[in-house]
């Protein structure tokens, strides 16, 4: 029974049909598998099943959208998609409902400045484009990127360009590509955001615009292959670039280079390590094995967490949450660090700069407690290049 304060809601066929044209929401029969597996459902932060259904309702008196609790907290981790018996792409529904939020001017504070930053500076951090190449400091020779001829582009992305921690990952990847004799170009200060953040926030127009500009840039350079540092860029470029450009996550390329013998391990061998599957690499694209093979080639003893691969717990950073404050209570990264420590491994490896940042800031992580490393850095040490 709704309480006296509950607003009367009215079903709106037109709105539901519109939702059905952009997503597969009409396939949903409200079984609740999504909510049962959603990491944010605990503590009542998000009820995915209910959100999908509410997509067909309007708020009676106002004729506008009803309140959609938790809509903007969703990390788009896609755990809901895994369990859905009807094969609904629930993340798509979330993005759609967010887009509707923008049309109705019903968005939480703090997101508009983010879009201005994307628009003005080409990155969500409000960092000057002129400093985008700062991460290349210390790189020389082939690792600094070739200037002509190379048809592979190392797409660094905003986080690896500006975050001092993630810059190291980018340098490790650049050095590994150089060590394997893979010629590659960098887009330098002209590199633009891939648009993943606007896309996850439901601002598809901005995402399309950014993709179109990058597509044009790559076309002019004659690029046939793009390698990304972040799984988020990997996902966005997959969705946004023209089909004739192959998009790879660095873990896929390094895996290929190691198995073909172009990269050889001979340096420091890694110890016991547990691996966290980034949502946008694993669940979104099914890339589960390459990072694991990389760790094992680097000599690591891989210890799995109980929730891994399709069931890996999200770090909490996706879906625009890197730029929003989350409640301290029940933060996903804290829970994941507890799981990682439970394996007994002294290090948690992952392959996404958002995951690294979230875990680094989590309770119980850090030097001497649980070392957070990126797979590329582990491989760099094993190959014997600085990383």
């Amino acid at each position: 029974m709704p309480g006296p304060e509950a607003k009367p809601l009215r079903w709106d066929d037109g709105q539901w049909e519109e939702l059905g044209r952009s997503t597969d929401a009409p396939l949903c029969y409200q079984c609740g598998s999504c909510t049962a597996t959603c990491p944010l459902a605990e503590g009542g932060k998000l009820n995915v099943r209910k959100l999908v259904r509410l997509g067909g309702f309007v708020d009676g008196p106002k004729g506008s959208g009803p309140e959609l609790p938790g809509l903007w907290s969703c990390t788009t981790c896609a755990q809901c998609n895994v369990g859905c018996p009807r094969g609904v792409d629930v993340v798509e529904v979330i993005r759609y409902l967010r887009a509707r939020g923008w049309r109705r001017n019903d968005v939480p504070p703090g997101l508009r400045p983010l879009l201005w930053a994307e628009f003005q500076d080409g990155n969500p951090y409000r960092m000057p484009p002129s400093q985008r190449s700062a991460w290349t400091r210390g790189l020389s020779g082939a690792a600094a990127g070739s200037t002509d001829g190379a048809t592979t582009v190392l797409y660094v992305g905003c986080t690896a360009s500006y975050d001092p921690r993630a810059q190291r990952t980018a340098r490790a990847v650049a050095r590994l590509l150089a060590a394997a004799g893979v010629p590659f170009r960098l887009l330098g200060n002209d590199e633009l955001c891939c648009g993943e953040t606007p896309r996850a926030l439901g601002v598809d127009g901005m995402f399309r615009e950014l993709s179109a500009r990058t597509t044009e840039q790559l076309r002019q350079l004659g690029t046939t292959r793009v390698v990304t540092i972040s799984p988020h860029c990997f996902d966005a470029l997959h969705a946004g670039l023209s089909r004739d450009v192959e998009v790879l996550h660095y873990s896929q390329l390094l895996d290929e280079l190691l198995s073909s013998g172009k990269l050889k391990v001979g340096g420091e061998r890694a110890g016991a390590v547990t691996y966290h599957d980034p949502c946008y690499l694993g669940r979104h694209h099914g890339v589960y094995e390459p990072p694991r093979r990389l760790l094992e080639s680097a000599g690591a003893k891989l210890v799995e967490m109980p929730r891994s691969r399709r069931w890996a717990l999200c770090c909490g950073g996706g879906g625009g949450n890197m730029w929003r404050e989350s409640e301290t209570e029940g933060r996903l990264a804290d829970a994941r660090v507890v799981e990682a420590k439970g394996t007994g491994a002294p290090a948690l490896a992952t392959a996404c700069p958002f995951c690294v940042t979230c875990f680094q800031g989590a309770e119980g992580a850090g030097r001497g407690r649980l070392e957070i490393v990126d797979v590329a850095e582990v491989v760099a040490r094993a190959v014997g290049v600085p990383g």
Partner: protein
Amino acid sequence: MTGPGGVWVYAERRGTAFRPVSLEILGRARGVADALGERLVALTAVPAEGAVQDLARFGADEVVGLVHPLLDRYDTRVYTDLLEREVRSGAPSVLFLGASRDGQDLAGRLAVRLRTGLTAHVTSVEVDPGHRLVGWVPGFGGGIEAGIVCPDRRPAIVTVRPGVFPLPVAGAARSYVRLVRPTVEAGSFGSRRVEFEPKGDTTDLTRSDVLVIGGRGTDGEFGRLQQLAHRLGGEVGATRVATDAGWIDRDRMIGQTGVVTHPKVAVVLGASGAVQFTVGIEKAGFVIAVNRDPDAPIFDAADLGIVGDLAPIVDRLVKALEGA
């Protein structure tokens, strides 16, 4: 009597004194009035006339005091009505307000009521050769600076960011003081004050030249940081981990979702240095980082780095500064 025209400055009270930003504007507006060949008028609204006299010591040609016992606190509706009436009758060519919370509230409403332009949040003003007032506003995170004029409508309303002009020294009370006793009714207040409890921490970190910032590595020992900040004449800030842990007030969080600061010196203690934090000290003049971990990314963002345990380093710094 106030003749038409003039450069007006609305002086805002905060407790028993005028807000520094109002006096800062008065100091700068003298030059503006002279360049425009106009009179400088300070306007204030106060509960008792004693306060009006204080304002006569900052170089204005005239001080207008709106005095009524009910004007002991700001109210959007009441103040908008009062100022609108004064501005309509005095017809100034420029009206300055501080970009304080109340000043911003008032300026926007006045601009709409008076159908004129508002240049908000300027960091400098000048009078151009065409005798127009130009307000400079940094936009898009400081990436560009826009010069804004209000060519046709009067008054040109301008709000000024606190701390951009020097605070003038009070001189002799030489302004002509005019008191106005407006009719103010309790019923016209949009809200009623039941109780007043000042917020404990009202520090504005963006105004501090020196910031001592603590992260996870402080283990919550912010007392030490306070001491150091005190010795350096600065303020204490924190990373998200530290505010989440409840070690310090959330208002002191620096970074993308906290405050973006631009101190001359930032001393960063025990923070790893994620970009979400470092964007908050991007514009610092000089960054000193102390961290136990020689690989901490914060060292990449620092001008000077010290590797070691925080407590003894901070204690030694405090001791050394005591002697200084």
